[in-house]
């Protein structure tokens, strides 16, 4: 009788190894998304006309089911991690751009006027005033991006077993070991919850200037469907 944490050898990883793999596949795309979203959002704020088309494109991209995305990409990038990470990066971008734009735009007019009047140039103003004030909104976006990314990685099991913890689902069926499926779902969920908690902690650390009682409800959180549940359903299919 093999135990809960005994991972079949065909996966070539221990349980912890799978977690590491899962984290890499989930977080690298979010990082990529953030790095692209910061300047893109700034462009959208500076040139207002740019935001509606960008928002439109990102919404359409978000609407593409992950499986369809994978199938298209397989022709180009094969059955690799990259095939899994590209859609995840795109999804992150899609979540982060509006989050950052909303956050930056929520900076009060008076604050901006004061900064300009004190001789802040546009770059200094973005980095020293707008971004710090947008931190709560950016982290709210990051939370969604990270959680959905963590759950979506599992779908990668259909792309040549690139699903990290998700691969346990296939093995559970193959070896008739239902506990592996439980392990996969529970570990993924715990991973998502822990990462989310870390982000909340980061927010608290970065924003001592927010009234603690009345922390603003992150806007982006309500704007999108709950990705974790969707992705889990998607993954189990």
């Amino acid at each position: 009788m093999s135990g809960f944490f005994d991972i079949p050898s065909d996966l070539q990883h221990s349980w912890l190894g799978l977690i590491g793999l899962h984290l890499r596949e989930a977080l690298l795309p979010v990082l990529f998304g953030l790095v692209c979203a910061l300047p893109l959002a700034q462009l959208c704020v500076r040139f207002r006309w740019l935001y509606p088309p960008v928002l439109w494109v990102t919404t359409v991209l978000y609407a593409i089911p992950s499986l369809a995305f994978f199938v298209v990409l397989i022709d180009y990038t094969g059955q690799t991690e990259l095939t899994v990470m590209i859609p995840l990066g795109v999804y992150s971008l899609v979540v982060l751009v509006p989050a950052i734009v909303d956050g930056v735009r929520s900076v009060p007019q008076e604050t901006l006027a004061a900064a300009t009047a004190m001789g802040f140039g546009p770059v200094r103003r973005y980095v020293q005033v707008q971004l710090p004030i947008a931190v709560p909104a950016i982290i709210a976006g990051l939370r969604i991006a990270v959680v959905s990314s963590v759950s979506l990685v599992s779908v990668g099991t259909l792309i040549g077993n690139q699903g990290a913890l998700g691969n346990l689902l296939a093995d559970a069926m193959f070896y008739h070991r239902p506990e592996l499926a439980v392990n996969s779902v529970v570990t993924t969920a715990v991973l998502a919850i822990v990462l989310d908690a870390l982000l909340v902690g980061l927010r608290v650390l970065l924003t001592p200037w927010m009234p603690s009682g009345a922390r603003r409800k992150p806007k982006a959180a309500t704007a999108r469907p709950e990705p974790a549940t969707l992705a889990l359903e998607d993954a189990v299919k």
Partner: protein
Amino acid sequence: MIRIDSVTKRYPDGTVAVDRLSLEIPDRSITVLVGPSGCGKTTTLRMINRMVEPSEGTILLDGKDITQQPVNTLRRSMGYVIQNAGLFQHRTIVDNIATVPRMLGWGKEKARARARELMERVGLDATLAKRYPYQLSGGQQQRVGVARALAADPPVLLMDEPFSAVDPVVRKGLQEELLRIQDELGKTIVFVTHDIDEAVKIGTMVAVMRTGGKLAQFAPPAELLSHPADEFVEDFLGADRGIRRLSFFPSAGLQLLTAPIVAIDSTAEQITARDTAGAPYLLVTDLEGRPLGWGEPDRLTAGDIRAEHLLSHGRPFVAGTDSLRAALDCAVLSPTGWAVAVDAEGRAAGVVSQQTIAEAIRSAHAEGRETDRAARATQVTKAVG
């Protein structure tokens, strides 16, 4: 000196916010721009630090066109205070105030020391230094806004309705604080408000603007009240212009009577022997000469001179320092119709009837004898400090 030379601002949508405006803003004094909403006050102010560029005309600072120097250098030489303060919510109070010195390359410690010094100057408790803006009241935030604008000791201060978002009591405190600070620092201040009372109270010069961005009148407040240029200015000044104008007449010339003043230890004989100049009531003072209240001569001569039987004397005015408006106010509020004048130490200096004040007002009007701004400013300082 800031010289605005036939400046016009036309916004891209065609709105003419300011129309051929010319103003000479004197150094080291407060010039107030006042007018109804949308008359171009903010636009005018923002053209001075180039947050808005004029469509036509030039603005000169000490004889030099302001476009001659880099825009951020210009802005750092001008403090800017706005409604709701516009503080950086993510920075502590002391770091908010230290912003411009830090940008000018000061060391962190030096900038913070300067910030703490300014907090004291604007009347903020040192314990607030490490707080964030959300932890301060509106009035405190506004003080931080003023301190932040003063941080790098700029010669010019631009203020856009800085006190309009706070309640009247706090506003009055802030106005007096500003006059006090101005007395010490002597900045060239351009102050925007839509409140004519505020303009009259703090302005050395007042520019009344009318809708369409035109200048209606540019004059010292006393002149504005006595000689409004046209019907628009007169309407804008409001109904009790006459009363308010009285605050520019000194009470120094008022004939004060000392005969109706008796000390509380006076005997009935002493009181009867006194010629009370026809005053219906006598003012009773304590042994140091501070007013206690009014007593009827009959009761006093009957030996009934206990303090609890006296009528309240209301709030006295300070002889010489306060204006005729204050004197009239005392007389109107006094149950006897007589005002009590005190000296700087609060001792009764004399009493004066409404009739006497009315005569003084008439003759002051006839002579057109308003005190000038500078004299008033020091009076306010005295009153506050």
